[in-house]
Each structure stands twice: as C-alpha cells, then as structure tokens.
C-alpha cells in the first residue's frame, strides 16, 4: 500500500515522519493550477492500493475554499476514469465532520466509496491505523454517489448560457475533428468538466475517429449569413467561418461591437444599424436569444434582445427575411414567442452539458441546425418577393395591394400545400389579367394585334410560309411536341422569327385565340416579358389543366421556389404596368 500525504508546506512538520509527502501550494492561486495528474502518475505503479491523505484547506486565508477537497475530487476522477479501484482518499481537517458537512460545498464527496474524513483534532498518529485497510471501490457505486456531489458549473460562466456556448463549440469541433480555438474558459480543465467526463466518458467518446462528420453544408454557397451572438468570439466565429465560408462557399458576417455597447439600448441600436447596413442582401440571420447581460434577469421574453432584434428584422426591414434563432434556451415559451409571434423561420438549440451528453445527440442537433439553415437559405427568396411587393404597391389600388400582400403572407407560411395554392392563385391572376387585357390591347392603338392572333391551325410548314407571305402581320407561336408526337403533352411555347428558316420545326397557328395564345401574346408583346417566362406560365397552366384538373400527366405538380419568385415578378410587373 502506498500512503501519500498531500499537505501544504505550513503543515509539513506534522507529517514529515510519514510515508510520502507531496507539498501542496499554500496559496489559492497556485492551488487552482495544481496538476493532479503528476500525483496520479506517481501512484500508478503501486499494486497493493493507494491511500491519499489530503489537507482540506491548504490555503489558510481562503479556508472556506476547501481547495484540498477539489484536488481530492480531481484525483478521484482520475482513479475512476483509469479503472483503478484499490484506493482510499482521506480528507483531513481541523474542524469536526459536522462542520465540514456544513461549510464544504462538496461535502457529499464523503459519501462516495473510498473517501473518508479524518479530524486532525485527535491524535494524528491514528491516521495510519485508520487507513490501513483499502477496500476495492465499486465503479457503479462510485458513479452513483458522485452524482450526489452536485458540482455546478464554474461561476465565471456567469450563466448557463455561457457554458452551453463553450460546451457546444467544444462538442462540435470535436465532432468534426477540429481543434477548439478561442475557447476562453478552458472548460476541459475545470472540475465541472472532469466531473461530467467521469460520469459520461465525454473525452473517450470523442476520441473515436468514426465520430467525425461531414464538414460541408451543401446549398449555401454564395449566400450571405449574418451572425449575431455575444459569444461569437468564444469559438463560434472560428467554427462557422470554417464551416460556412471555407468549406461551403458562403459569406459569414458577424456583429462584433458587443464590447462597445454598455447599455442594452445602446446594443440594440448598434445591432439595428448593423442590420440596416448588412441586412439588405442577407440570406439568413443567425441570432442568439440573449445578447446582453440584462437579458438574464429579464422575465418578459418579448423584451429579450434577440427577440427585439428579430422583430426589427422582420417587421421594420422585411417580413421575408429569414432568421434562425440559435440559442441555449430550451424554454418552450421562448420558442413559441420566436416562431409564432415574431415569425422567425427556425429555432435551433445549442446543446447543453446537462442535457446532451450522448455522442449521437451532438450530431443530431448539428443535423437539425444544418437543416434549419438550409431551409432558411432556400426561402431567402421571400425577402425579394416582399420587397418587390412593397415597391410596386404604391401605384396600385387597395384591392390589388391587398391581394399582393395576401400572396406575400401566404408565401411566408412554410407548408408546401399552401405554396402550391399560392402558385395556382398567382396563375389565375395572370390568366385573368391577360384575358382582360387582350380585349383592351386595342386601346393602345395596336389595332392589328388581334388580327395577328387569329388564323388557322397549320401543321404544314408550306401553308405557314404561304400565310406569312400573304399576310405580314401574322405572328407564329410554335409548340414543341412531346417525343411520342402527342399534342396532349405540348407545353413549351416558342416564338419564331418571321425571317428565320423553320423547315425543321412544327409550328401551328391556333384558329381562335386560345387561352395560351392570349397569355403569351399579352405577356410577350404587351408587357415585353422574355420568352422563357411565357413558357413557364404556359407550362404551369398545362400542368394545372392536365395533372390537377384531370389527373393526367405522369408526375405530380412540382413547384420550385424560383417559379414562385417568377410568378410574383410577373404579377408585380403586369399590375404596375400602366
């Protein structure tokens, strides 16, 4: 059995006759830096058991700090983590056991197997007899008892928020096999981390290489992401820079001026100015909920700085702006306020040391984060729609403005069914406009336009050529045939230059002005919209008529975001056209 005494030099004379004495520093400053691994390494060689007698308060001026107990805990963690169970830790102090229990924050340590208290008021020579027998410590029993020690996070993490940030940065960096940079608190050196490490084998889990996950996020290239988090410089910025910019081609713009603002109002004003400057072309805002110290005491969650900034971005700047709340708060009322009242797009959680210890949970939370980010980026077109709506609204009557606003509001709703309905509604608006306008085209003096669109359905190119030769005012729309030659799948309208050879194509002129003719002619010749837009309008009309109305076609209707943007553009253009 190896008997080792850990005492300050001031108490050395007491135990100088004893077996092995390791001097502990006698100032708290140095005790905080004391490296227990050296003591542990010295002991590892013994096979008959180890007994460590540790002075509870080596620094007399900081008697209530019980730094010896902290050192004892750290050694206990080392023993348990390394599978060494033939040891005993004896905490020795001049106070009685009751007093120790009353004042030592970690007094429950005494309830752990292999830990005892020795009151030095008695004859200290009894100590040798008391510790002579070392019983094997049961691993599970030790872990169960350690849970009752209640080691809280260090107080320099003045909030749960701060430690969660550092924890999450640490975990995510580990997940990618990256080194945590700028993590200021040295979390893994703290008693708290070592405690969790012992209970949950955190480090061991991250050592496994297979945990490394993909570090590229597809779909965010060339996108601009604004990051507003008071902890940005504690590892997040470096992590996101690597993840978003270096690996995924996006641009990351953090708000950096937290230190320049003292009051909450100053901070809010500074962030609002930053949003005014950077927000216009931003595809996604990542915002923390609590950005100022005052937020930690705030009872009204609508007054949290992150909520105030989010409301500013949505209500004052652009309802279509995409915001992801990235926060340590798992409170459902914060989530409800942010999602359903402020109207942010996503709410992603920073994992916390208490709740997210499972290795896979890091990955799952990260996946949720990526999914939310990509969704925000995908829907960033909404800000353009809302902006355009406001731009064109000035010259419109109130009914048209309300219709456009209603479309904008519906687009902000996430579900795909609503988006389909909105797209089809927009199509109806375009169709009606074109039909009405077709009759009115004559007003602008283009009297021949109607004539242009009448004629026969010609499939013979010679007839068309003849028709053209005789009537210079005929305009020809061509419709591409499907591969099997069926007309039912004709969806793609093309406009042919009169003077171009077109023997190789199969154009036809519709005998009466059909809906397609009306739409395409008004869009192209009256509103000067490019051919590809006319084609897309016709294509959706075809899909609606065949797939939705008659359940024909070979696939369900698929509306991509660009169609929504395009249709909204068309509507804005045709409505604002005088």
């Amino acid at each position: 059995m190896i008997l080792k005494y850990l005492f300050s030099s001031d108490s050395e004379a007491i135990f100088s006759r004893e077996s092995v004495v390791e001097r502990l520093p006698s100032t708290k400053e140095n005790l905080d830096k004391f490296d227990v691994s050296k003591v542990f390494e010295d002991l590892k060689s013994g096979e008959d058991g180890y007994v460590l007698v540790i002075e509870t308060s080596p620094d007399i001026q900081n008697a209530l700090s019980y730094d010896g107990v902290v050192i004892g805990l750290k050694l206990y963690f080392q023993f348990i983590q390394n599978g060494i169970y033939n040891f005993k830790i004896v905490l020795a102090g001049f106070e009685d056991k009751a007093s120790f229990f009353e004042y030592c924050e970690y007094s429950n340590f005494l309830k752990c197997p292999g830990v005892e208290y020795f009151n030095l008021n008695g004859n200290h020579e009894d100590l040798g007899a008391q510790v002579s027998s070392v019983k094997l410590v049961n691993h599970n029993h030790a872990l169960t008892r350690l849970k009752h020690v209640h080691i809280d996070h260090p107080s320099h993490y003045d909030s749960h928020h701060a430690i969660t940030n550092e924890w999450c940065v640490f975990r995510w960096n580990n997940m990618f096999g990256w080194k945590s940079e700028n993590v200021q608190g040295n979390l893994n050196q703290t008693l708290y981390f070592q405690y969790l490490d012992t209970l949950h084998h955190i480090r061991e889990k991250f050592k496994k290489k297979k945990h490394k996950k993909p570090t590229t996020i597809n779909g965010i290239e060339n996108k601009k992401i604004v990051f507003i988090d008071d902890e940005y410089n504690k590892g997040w910025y470096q992590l996101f820079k690597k993840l978003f910019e270096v690996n995924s081609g996006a641009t990351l713009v953090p708000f950096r001026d937290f230190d320049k603002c003292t009051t909450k109002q100053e901070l809010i004003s500074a962030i609002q100015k930053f949003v005014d400057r950077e927000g216009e072309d931003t595809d996604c805002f990542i915002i923390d909920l609590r950005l100022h110290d005052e937020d930690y005491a705030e009872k009204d969650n609508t007054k949290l700085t992150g909520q105030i900034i989010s409301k500013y971005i949505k209500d004052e700047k652009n309802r279509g702006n995409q915001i992801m709340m990235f926060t340590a708060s798992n409170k459902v009322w914060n989530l409800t306020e942010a999602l359903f009242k402020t109207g942010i797009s996503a709410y992603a959680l920073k994992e916390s040391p208490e709740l997210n210890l499972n290795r896979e949970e890091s990955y799952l939370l990260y996946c949720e984060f990526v999914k939310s980010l990509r969704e925000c980026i995908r829907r960033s077109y909404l800000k353009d729609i809302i902006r355009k709506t406001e731009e064109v609204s000035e010259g419109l009557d109130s009914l048209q403005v309300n219709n456009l606003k209603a479309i904008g509001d519906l687009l902000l709703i996430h579900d795909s069914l609503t988006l389909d309905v909105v797209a089809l509604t927009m199509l109806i608006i375009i169709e009606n406009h074109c039909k009405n306008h077709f009759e009115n085209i004559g007003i602008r003096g283009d009297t021949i336009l109607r004539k242009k669109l009448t004629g026969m359905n010609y499939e013979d190119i010679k007839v068309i050529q003849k028709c053209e030769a005789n009537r210079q005012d005929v305009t020809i729309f061509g419709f591409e045939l499907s591969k099997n030659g069926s007309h039912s799948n004709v969806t793609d309208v093309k406009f042919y230059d009169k003077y171009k050879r077109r023997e190789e194509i199969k154009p036809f002129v519709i005998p009466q002005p059909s809906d397609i003719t009306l739409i395409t002619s008004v869009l192209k010749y009256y509103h000067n919209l490019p051919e590809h837009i006319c084609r897309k309008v016709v294509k959706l009309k075809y899909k609606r008529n065949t797939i939705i109305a008659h359940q024909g076609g070979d696939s369900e209707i698929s509306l991509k975001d660009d169609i929504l943007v395009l249709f909204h553009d068309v509507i804005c253009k045709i409505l604002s056209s005088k």
Partner: protein
Amino acid sequence: MIYLVEDRKDRLSRLLKSGVPSGIEMLDMSEMNKENINDIISKIDNPTAILLHSSYTFPSDKSLTMKDVEGALKTIHPNIKIALFSGGLDNAIITERFVNINSADMYNRLPLFMDRYRETGECKLEILTYGISYIVNHLKQFQISAGRMLMNSQDREDWKKTLQKLILRVDAQITLEELHSEKQQLKDWLQDGLKKGEPPSKDIVLNQIQRLINKSQVS
C-alpha cells in the same frame, strides 16, 4: 473613502438594484493614460479601498491596463486595499490587502461590505470574498492556524509555552469586533487551563476552538 471604477454601467444597475451604496465614490478613469496615471492616482482623496473592474477599457490609452493602475495605487497609496473584479473569474482569491473576485459575487456582497464600513470604518475584504460567511472564514483561519501550531509542537515540556503562544495568537488573529466576547472566553479558558497543574491537552484545546466556532455559528 471607498472608490469604485466600473465602465459597465448596465451591470452596475442590474446587480445593484438599490443603486450604488452610500459611501462609495464612483471614479472616472476615462481620461487616464500612461502620462497622467500617477497624477490622477495621487489626487484620489483618502482612499481606504478601491474596487476595480479588471477589464476596464481606457479610452484615452488602449495600452493602459488595470495592472498598471494597481501598481501605481500600491506605490502611491501603500495602505490601500484593492478588489479586482471580473466576470471571467471563478473563485475568489484573497490576501491581506487584495482580493480577486467574480463581478457578480462582488456586487452581491457590496451592500454588506459597505454597511460594515459605514458602521465601524473597517474595510473587510473578507466580506466581499465570503459575504455573510466572513465570520466563519475568520474563525476557520484561526482554527487551522492554531491546529497547525499545536500539532507541530512535539515537545511536552514546552506545552505550556505553546499554550501561551496560542493565547497571543488568539489576540492577533481573532480581530473581528463581532467575536469580541468569544475571543475573551477562549483566552480566559486557556489562561485558566494554564493555571492548572495539568494544562488541557492538544485535542481538548482544539475541541474547545471547534466549540467556539459552533457557538458563533448559532449566535
């Protein structure tokens, strides 16, 4: 006079709900730079203690740090007590004239610290460090100190001398006014013991000190 140097006014209002306790003078160091530091510090009137935000940013001289200020204070006002507070600190570290402490802890304990200062004129950094437990910390300091002294005394012939030294140590180390009667009782008890043919043994003396602590806790 107790001075406070704090550039984070929001923290001040958040942590001191009832405002800055009376008797504290806010000190503005925004004009301070390396040229005028000694001049400004020498003009601080009758400083008993100064509470400094360790990450204070000096707008006039970015290279200036609180370490510079601390050094100048110690030189110009050698008797001053200094509390350096920071949000990035975990545990407090106290020495005779200096304490390094977490900001939130410091502000929480500041009213008690100032109450004591106003009532007695005593500037007890222990109150900033341990709050209401400063009396217990004070007694435990004595307990450890006395324990070490008695345990180190191996020579039975000198036991009476040791106990006499202990009485001197009681006088020197139990200095809080609140413990005046307990201190006197302990001294009386030790002196009575010395008068007996067989003075109280080491464990009896140490148990008596423990009883003193237990009693002070109750009171």
